[in-house]
């Protein structure tokens, strides 16, 4: 069955207009029964500069951003300027003739006037509603009932009073009517799947929901772009589930409080980005040493240092793996799309609790600000994972908090619950928790702590890949991680369609400890391994090289924007 795809980009002056237009449109199109993939960029500065919103609607999977668009809706000339080159050769430019001056660069591509300002003025008496005019018009392009848009706008502007709602709904109506007359030809014969039980969320929201689903009940936090919305979400929603989200004075205090709460028996998660994770390094190590479970969502942004806070990059992997002094165990994970953001967060908290280790979940700015409609998660039969607790009648005399068990996991008493008082300490300690620096004890305890990772690594095998079996006779394989999943998958489809060459794809969600056995199996038949990453130095590739002695072909992109499938098709074909 052929699938249909429509990619629309809206560009205009920074600020809320473009974004809220895009957000309402996305939801309406999703309700209309398409799979959507919505992405936005905005300037780091609070105001000014170009904002863009790109919406892809599809009746097949809509897994990735697209560099070229079917429709560019240019609200002002800057947007035309910046994006005209991205219109496909058979694409269309929608533009407001009062603001956009067409030039040669449009070439032979179609254009349709969309006098947003004039329509807005006519319909509402003001220019202000022109984003909603655009929205109405695009609803028509996606062939979504205008009522969907009007209802959503009603909810969106509800708090601002009836007049505002009416004005915006009028603008939507007017845009829609205009489009029905002038743009009918853009529409595609989508095979819609209506009435699905879905939610429309971005990566940050999916992580935050995952935290709640995972039973997290304490969230310390400190704002940092692009992770802030996770914390804001939890400040709003966690109290409704009886949990507590508390802002601290910095990331150090935030993680310290998290460890305190974890020690006191809570399931704890916090969210941050590169600079914040840096500040957490010392305390993260403490969590590993005291064996207090804790989960950190690290939403990667362009680095180094303050870098490019509003841009994306997969460049914190090595730091996540190695970013503490000395040697302590830790699990690093990376969800591969929005749906996975939810589930890997649930899993991260489970792993943290079961193994009593810190878990870092690496998402990135692209995932954080990409929205997709996903099936409403069903938590029936999902194991949330309990921390190992000593029986209540344990004898305190013989009890060892850091008992040297086979899998390294030791029972952890909870203050107020167990009559098993112990010292939890960052100093090297005996199984009982007393400071001890003898060689034998250090060796024993280091091995005990790392054995947890071995135990985890063994279990990872079954769960961490995307495809259970590689295609027969395949010689080329790609290993990716994190948010590049969609682009890689689509690129492979394209390459197979174009060239007939079959390409295997492994996309581990647990990056460290490495699912060794699985990777070896994957590497087995391959003649060529390609590792694409959104960073400069090839961090995962280097990690794989260190473990498996292989020499992959590395594709690096450190541009602050995600790979597109088109780009990867080009880059991979060169290596075939």
């Amino acid at each position, binding site marked *: 069955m052929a699938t249909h795809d429509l990619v629309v980009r809206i560009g205009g002056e920074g600020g809320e207009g473009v974004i809220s237009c895009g957000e309402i449109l996305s939801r309406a199109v999703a309700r209309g029964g398409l799979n959507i993939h919505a992405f936005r960029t905005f300037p780091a500065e609070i105001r000014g500069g170009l904002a863009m919103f790109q919406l892809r609607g599809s009746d097949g999977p809509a897994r990735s951003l697209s560099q070229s668009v079917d429709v560019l809706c240019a609200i002002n000339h800057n947007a035309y300027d910046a994006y005209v080159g991205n219109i496909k050769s058979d694409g269309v430019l929608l533009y407001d003739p009062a603001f956009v001056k067409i030039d040669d660069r449009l070439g032979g591509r179609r254009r349709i006037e969309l006098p947003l300002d004039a329509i807005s003025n006519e319909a509402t008496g003001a220019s202000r509603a022109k984003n909603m005019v655009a929205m109405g018009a695009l609803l028509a392009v996606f062939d979504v009932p205008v009522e969907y848009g009007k209802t959503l706008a009603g909810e969106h502007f509800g708090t601002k009073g009836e007049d505002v709602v009416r004005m915006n709904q009028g603008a939507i109506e007017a845009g829609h009517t205009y489009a029905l007359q002038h743009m009918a030809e853009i529409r595609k014969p989508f095979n819609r799947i209506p009435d699905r039980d879905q939610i*429309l969320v971005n990566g940050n929201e999916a992580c935050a929901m995952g935290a709640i689903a995972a039973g997290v009940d304490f969230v310390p936090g400190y704002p940092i772009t692009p992770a802030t919305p996770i914390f804001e979400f939890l400040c709003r929603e966690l109290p409704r*589930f009886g949990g507590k989200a*508390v802002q601290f*004075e910095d990331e150090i205090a935030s993680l310290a409080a998290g460890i305190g709460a*974890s020690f006191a028996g809570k399931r704890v998660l916090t969210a941050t980005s590169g600079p914040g994770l840096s500040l957490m390094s010392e305390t993260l190590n*403490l969590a590993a040493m005291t064996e207090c479970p804790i989960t950190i969502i690290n939403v990667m942004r362009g680095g180094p240092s303050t870098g490019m806070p509003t841009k994306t990059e997969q460049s914190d992997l090595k730091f996540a793996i190695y970013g503490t002094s000395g040697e302590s165990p830790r699990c690093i994970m990376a969800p591969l799309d929005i749906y996975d953001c939810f589930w890997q967060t649930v899993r991260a908290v489970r792993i943290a609790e079961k193994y009593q280790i810190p878990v870092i979940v690496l998402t990135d700015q692209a995932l954080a600000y990409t929205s997709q409609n996903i099936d409403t*998660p069903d938590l029936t039969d999902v194991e949330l994972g309990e921390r190992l607790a000593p029986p209540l009648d344990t004898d305190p005399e013989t009890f060892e908090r850091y008992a040297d068990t086979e899998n390294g996991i030791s029972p952890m008493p909870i203050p107020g619950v167990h009559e098993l*008082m112990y*010292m939890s300490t960052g100093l090297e300690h005996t199984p009982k928790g007393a400071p001890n620096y003898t060689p034998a004890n250090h060796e024993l305890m280091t091995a005990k702590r790392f054995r947890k990772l071995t135990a985890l690594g063994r279990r990872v095998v079954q769960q961490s890949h995307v495809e259970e079996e590689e295609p027969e006779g395949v010689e080329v394989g790609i290993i990716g991680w994190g948010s590049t999943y969609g682009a890689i998958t689509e690129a492979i489809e394209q390459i197979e369609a174009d060239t007939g060459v079959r390409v295997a794809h492994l996309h581990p969600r647990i990056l460290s400890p490495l699912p060794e056995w699985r990777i070896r199996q994957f590497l087995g038949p391959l003649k060529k391994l390609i590792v694409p990453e959104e960073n400069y130095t090839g961090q995962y590739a280097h990690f794989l090289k260190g473990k498996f002695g292989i020499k992959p072909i590395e594709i690096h992109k450190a541009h602050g924007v995600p790979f597109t499938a088109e780009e990867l098709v080009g880059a991979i074909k060169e290596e075939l």
Partner: protein
Amino acid sequence: MTTDTALKVADYKSDLKPIWCSGCGDYGVITPFYQALAEIQAQPKDTVIVSGIGCSGRFPYFCNTYGFHGVHGRALPTAAGVKIANPDLAVVAVGGDGDGLGIGGGHVAHVCRKNIDMTYILIDNSIYGLTKGQSSPTSPLDMTSKTAPYAYLEDPVNPLLMMLAYDASFVARGYSGKPKVLKELFTRALKHEGFSVLHIYSPCVSMNKQVTFKTMNEIVQPLPDDWDTSDRLKGMEMAMDTGTFYTGVVYEDHRPTIHRRLDDLEERSGRYDELGDLFRQYK
């Protein structure tokens, strides 16, 4: 241990013998602390002592309660996490002048304004003891140390004045040379609902030869009998008099803790019954 038998002072001592130098002021801090715990009949299993790094940071090892020995300077936020997580626990944070006023100095104002219901024991010896004698934020101007071999070039901070400026809801000062007073202060601090801080001068006999039991004895004096613990400004005036080291409860205030406010929040936010209620908002 059963809760219906009264606990004795000895019940609060752990099996580990304090490893402080003989004569160290910290012995004069921990003994009255044990006594205060017995006085209020603190339950070891419901008590958590959190410390930073330093000689003073060894405190929880010697107490038969839950203990957490974290990293340098983070005793307060760690303890805050414990208390917010479970407000039924009695939480005590303890650390030195370097730990609490140097590297950890940025956290104090924020536990004060959250009014976290816990007790902070700030053990001041005007030196970095554990690392063997470097200047600390309370080392007096001109005092020599291993990092100020000629003279210390900085004026000291005024911990008491700072705590009052941060509006800690209970502020007291003590001296390890006066353990009886300390027992009293600990008892009151532990009973106070809200953030209570005890600034205790506790001489380091090994590393600090300039601020000593001897020099302290000369300037220590109890607060006047009629001291008004509700007068913060007066407390500040007293704190600025650095010629005398007044001991006693300087200031006490009763206002809501963050724990009570968080309890309210659960109501205010509107309770959900199940995850589905949340998902519904995103359909």
